[in-house]
């Protein structure tokens, strides 16, 4: 978008848009443009919905992009079976409240084998229950475009990602062979079987996401806010101990403290942080003074160097 931030002169000064800063308004406009472009050019788009804060923003912007028309594509949640139970409840509530066309997919192979992130290791578990499961679901739906909430500021390998990220028929991402992306002109031409992953929030930062959630009053899973919760310390990670799927290891003790989560995924792989941030304002304060990166609590990124890059090559979102 060449234009500077848009200013909407509203008939009602209390409307939402007047609360967005010009900066956030410009980010929202850019994301809406991307949503509409995909809806116009692709036959079978789908939106990956992970229930996290970025997905919540993505969903909200999608509603704004098409309103008063309902979102003209389905949502897909890849459920590993090990998500925080609060996430699943939130997901189902959101789908009901907004009347969403939500599909949930779990890899039947992993479910049959009883795969566990604790027993089988985070790397293998993620391969099967996230990467392989996602490929299964995308193939089954014959989707030619899949929206995701990834941001370029999340991880070094993400920083080179296009907004339209081209994938081969086997879902692989070739960093060397991505299409040049100029202005706001996205090349959506693909051959049969190929697809694109689309990232409308590419240019948002973690801080932008929180400020937008605040301004737009977007509901998010309660686990983002600090509260006294039971946890165990495992491999240096703060693992929530509210779940019957968690078996204590010898020597482990259930503790309690004020914790929250900066990113949400599988409860076994998403470590919490000690925090007193009970409101969105507290969280914004916390991250503007934070000295660790957002994905620091994520087990999958720590397996080995270049971990995210490797997963992306294989088709991880």
């Amino acid at each position: 978008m060449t234009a500077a931030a848009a200013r909407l002169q509203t008939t009602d000064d209390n409307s939402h848009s007047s609360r967005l800063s010009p900066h956030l308004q410009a980010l929202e406009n850019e994301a809406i443009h991307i949503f509409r472009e995909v809806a116009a050019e692709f036959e079978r788009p789908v939106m990956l919905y992970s229930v996290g804060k970025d997905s919540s923003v993505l969903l909200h912007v999608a509603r704004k992009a098409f309103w008063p028309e309902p979102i003209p594509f389905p949502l897909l949640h890849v459920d590993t079976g090990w998500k925080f139970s609060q996430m699943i409840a939130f997901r189902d509530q959101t789908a009901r409240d907004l009347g969403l066309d939500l599909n949930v997919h779990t890899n039947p192979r992993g479910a049959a084998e009883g795969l566990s992130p604790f027993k089988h290791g985070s790397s293998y578990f993620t391969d099967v229950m996230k990467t392989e499961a996602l490929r299964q679901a995308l193939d089954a739906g014959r989707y030619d475009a899949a929206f995701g909430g990834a941001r370029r500021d999340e991880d070094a390998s993400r920083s080179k990602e296009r907004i339209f990220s081209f994938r081969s028929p086997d879902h692989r991402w070739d960093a060397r062979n991505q299409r040049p992306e100029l202005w706001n002109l996205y090349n959506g031409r693909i051959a049969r079987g190929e697809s694109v992953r689309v990232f409308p929030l590419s240019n948002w930062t973690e801080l932008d996401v929180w400020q937008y959630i605040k301004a737009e009053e977007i509901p998010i899973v309660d686990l983002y806010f600090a509260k006294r919760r039971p946890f165990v310390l495992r491999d240096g990670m703060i693992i929530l101990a509210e779940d019957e799927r968690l078996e204590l290891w010898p020597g482990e003790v259930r503790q309690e403290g004020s914790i929250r989560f900066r990113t949400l995924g599988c409860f076994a792989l998403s470590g919490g942080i000690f925090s007193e941030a009970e409101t969105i304002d507290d969280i914004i304060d916390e991250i503007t003074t934070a000295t660790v990166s957002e994905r620091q609590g994520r087990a999958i990124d720590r397996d080995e160097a270049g971990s995210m890059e490797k997963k992306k090559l294989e088709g991880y979102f």
Partner: protein
Amino acid sequence: MSLDAEILPLEPEFERDGEPVATDHEDGRRLRFLVCGSVDDGKSTLIGRLLWDTKSVAEDHRAALIAKGSKQNDLSLPDFGLLLDGLKAEQEQGITIDVAYRYFQTPRRAFIVADTPGHEQYTRNMATGASTADLAVLLVDARAGLLEQTRRHAAIVHLMGIRQVVLAVNKIDLVGYDRAVFDDIELEFRAYAARLGEMAITAIPLSALKGENIVTPARENLGWYSGPTLIEALETAPTAQLSGLSFRMPIQRVSRPGETFRGYQGTVAAGSVAVGDRVVVAPSGQTVSVARIVTFDGDVERAEAGAAVTLVFDRKVDAARGDVLTAADATPLTGRDFTATLVTLQTDGLKDGARLWLKAAGRMKRVRVSIDEAYDLGAGRWTKSTTLPVNAIGRVRLHFAEDAIFDRFSDCRDTGAFILISPKTNNTVAGGMIADLAETESDGKEHVTMSLPHDLAEFILGLPAVKARRSEIEIIPDR
């Protein structure tokens, strides 16, 4: 100057204070800029230093960086370049091979920096980074002076419509902070840039490695320099100018959730639109009135450039994706032939007469491209040419089978820019900017365009009468 001001602070002069970015800047928008230069110019070090000194590097990343040691310098500083190398293969080769976007902020402003490669064959990445940038930082090694590469970068940046440049004369410490060296480079660059056309230039002597004049002024060593530090120049630079044109909105999508609602969705590209305005649907020329401007947050009376909205008209009209809604008194350029400047992006380059897909503001059209001139970056002039290799800048004419609508790129980016897509590979082969309408040209041949299912096309091509004239038939595969 007071005595205090002579003392160099150990830490950068500002801290991240936990406050959100100030939104009192003229338009509140973050500045997008790109940094051009080669590995040898210290580009990665410069960007790494910007992130480091603005405290944009998280503690766990800092720790990883320090653990990796400081192979490339003897100042016990981390290797800032490592901050930027996202992909393993790049780390191994020691070069950045793609465009990477970095995000950082100061208390005054937020920034997106496009890190683009300096090697000649990667002009495509520079053009990509430049297409969305408000400003370019051109990096020069003070010891080497202006190189052909810097001129090339400046020309591309200017071509892509960027009108403000920071000339960062790096490694000034390695020439003994010599003012004469800096002055010579600045003068030579200004002379070169004047030939390109209008361009606002700020030249800054600095040392990315030592952090001098990046965020912290180097008053002791560069006492003769009174201009801004790099960060000051970036904080005060205006964002790209709004288009001065009247209302433009390419239709992105027609929304028809039910019989009673028909909305035209799009992003306002120029000017503004208000309820009651009469607008023209180009290219058909029908005129309608705006009945409603619909947003999720309620109807609005007026929408300005940049806003993503849905328009409802007072009556039914035949308008579709790719049409452009325009002010009634200022319609865009309409015709079958246009002149344009473009950058080639793929190894095959571009050949005279190539038939390609053109994508611009919601439209996908077939186009034939005539090549007229290539830009000789070394000599700084246009020369006659009928082919363009990869990474070339060319002047071309675009020929459409039916009327097309554009604005001059210099008037409006959103309605003046286009990409060319190969029907064979589906890859983006060029990025271009409309210059003007061209003389209508006829190549003396009659054209019939047919869009057919694969099996039917095979059948027709197999007919004896068609087979005999096979050489006159051109086939463009569809998806």
